[in-house]
């Protein structure tokens, strides 16, 4: 997902630079506004329709199924791997530090003090999953690991002056 976001942004920004370049390079010549305004307003209408179609398409693709796990479901009945996680200034407490691949892991995340961000990173330092750790709430994050290895848990919500030192470890093994 991350590289898709990057390339979409890059291509869109370059395209936009192209549009601005076209307009700016056509700005020094003077022409009556009425000679082209109607035609370009027509283009604007089409552009608007394009953005609306894109809007609806993106909403359908990205919201169905809803991309966040249900918070009301009782995962312990399903035989998933369950880890209770608690964030503290400035360390993580986890009920277990080992899970296996190809079987959903349910992280039940809360905090002992302030807001923290529970971010799971693989060995290549790619962010694979995250959820906030919030006072008074237990947030359920469900993720299925497909690659074994040593994963790191980094804090993704600023939580005080040792925020960057709040690093935990999770071992993901072959089943």
């Amino acid at each position: 997902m991350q590289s898709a976001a990057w390339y979409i942004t890059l291509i869109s920004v370059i395209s936009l630079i192209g549009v601005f370049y076209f307009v700016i390079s056509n700005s020094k010549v003077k022409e009556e506004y009425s000679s082209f305004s109607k035609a370009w307003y027509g283009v604007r209408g089409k552009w608007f329709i394009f953005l609306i179609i894109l809007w609806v398409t993106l909403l359908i693709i990205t919201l169905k199924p809803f991309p966040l796990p249900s918070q009301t479901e009782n995962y312990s009945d399903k035989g998933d791997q369950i880890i209770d996680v608690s964030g503290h200034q400035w360390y993580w407490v986890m009920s277990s530090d080992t899970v296996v691949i190809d079987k959903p892991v349910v992280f039940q995340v809360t905090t002992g003090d302030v807001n923290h961000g529970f971010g799971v990173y693989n060995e290549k330092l790619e962010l694979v999953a995250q959820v906030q750790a919030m006072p008074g709430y237990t947030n359920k994050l469900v993720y299925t690991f497909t690659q074994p290895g040593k994963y790191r848990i980094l804090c993704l919500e600023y939580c005080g002056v040792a925020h960057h030192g709040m690093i935990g470890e999770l071992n993901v093994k072959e089943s």
Partner: protein
Amino acid sequence: MSKATVDKIHYSDAENRGALIAVKAHLITGFLVFLLMMLGGAVMRAAQGALMPSVGADLFYQIMTVHGVGVVGTSAIASTGILWYFLRQYVQLSTKIFWLNFFIFLTGVVIILGSIFLGGYAGAWTFLYPLPGISLGVWSTGAAAGFLIGLLLIGTGFLILYLDWGRAILSRYGSFGQALGLPQLFGKEPLNPYHPTTVVVGTMVLIVDFLGIAAGAVALVIMLINLYNPEFKPDALLVKNLIYFFGHVIINAAMYASVSAVYELLPQYTGRPYKTSKVFYAAWFAIVFMVMAVYPHHLYMDFPLPKWIMIVGQVLSYGSGIPLMVVTGYGALMLVYRSGIQWNTSAKLLILSMFGWAAGGIPAVLDSMITFNKVLHNTLWVPGHFHFYLLLGLLPMILGFTLYLFNIPQEKEPPLVEKLGFYSYAGGALLLSLVFLNSGSNGIPRRWAVHLDEWIPYAQLGAVAAVLVVFGFLLFTVRVLIVLPKAAEPVPAAVH
């Protein structure tokens, strides 16, 4: 206002001189603080790039706190200066109240600076409950209270100013609906293409900022009570909602306030009027609601938030970009196209602002989709998109307006210092934003004082970009300090 043209408000020469001085004070303050904030930003990137070992974590997070709150506050005060300058031409505004807000703002700033650099407060501008009260001894309760009280004071000043705007708009137009052009939009009155764009902008900003600041004030008061009476524990998710509603509205409203410079000045540079229309009214009416309703895109990773709120956040976050992409940006490009425009630096900056706003919206919209947010939230992607917005969208509007106030004849060739400043600033800002975005796409977290070895090259490249930005902005600031204080009131160019 059903007339075909607009009657501008008449002020005496002395009143106009006083108003211009007040606007200049807002802008000069803005330039000086922005420059300092940019230096702070460059220092942070250099520290993350292991280029400044003397900046320890304590100092880094203090700079980070002042950088965040300083940029938001200064954006608000400078953009208010722009909108007030144009709005007072159409409604009767009080210069005394404009100054009152300015001095309350400065008082709040002094208190906040004291809380950070004397009290050691480093709870970030987001002051997420209960972090200000739980620092593990790094800062005191008094320092946290100072920060919150400083913010509360600044908000109060703005609320007083907005009461004056509200009074002025109501006394001229009778209702906010009239000022927004709603009777024309819904066909109850004939279309008046000369209804001032600035009045529409000013009314929208007044409504959303008033509500945003009021919500922020509630959060601040709740947290102040909690600081001194810890038995009182508000719901953390509720406070987070209030804070992000407040923060998102404030910074977005600063953008929308500054865009009045584009509406007012591009017609002067191109000789073409920016007429209001039903499409224009519809876009701004939609924005009133969208700006207030999109903030849940900051809270997707708070899974207990009701699902429907998240869906609304995603739907409207995309939607809020449409009025910009279809009306403001597109309209600005149409004004410029084959207009024979003389490209002075002000005009260049205003068109750059349209590019920055539109382009910055792309990574913002992506991050506002839950599917992407799951792996981009709270990475450097987020500062990437808002630095794009602010450095290439908002600040070029403020710069472009300030250079307009220089009152230099349009046909005069811009001095080398402006050209150099423009390219150093724009190039640096683009590079800086892209480095942030690329860092975010590589999973680098935001708000980390010390970076892992693998991330250091990104921070170093970011530091180089930041130096270019600081250099370009420094050139502009020096020029502003020399030229602006003595500049006379500009005479608007004819628009046909």
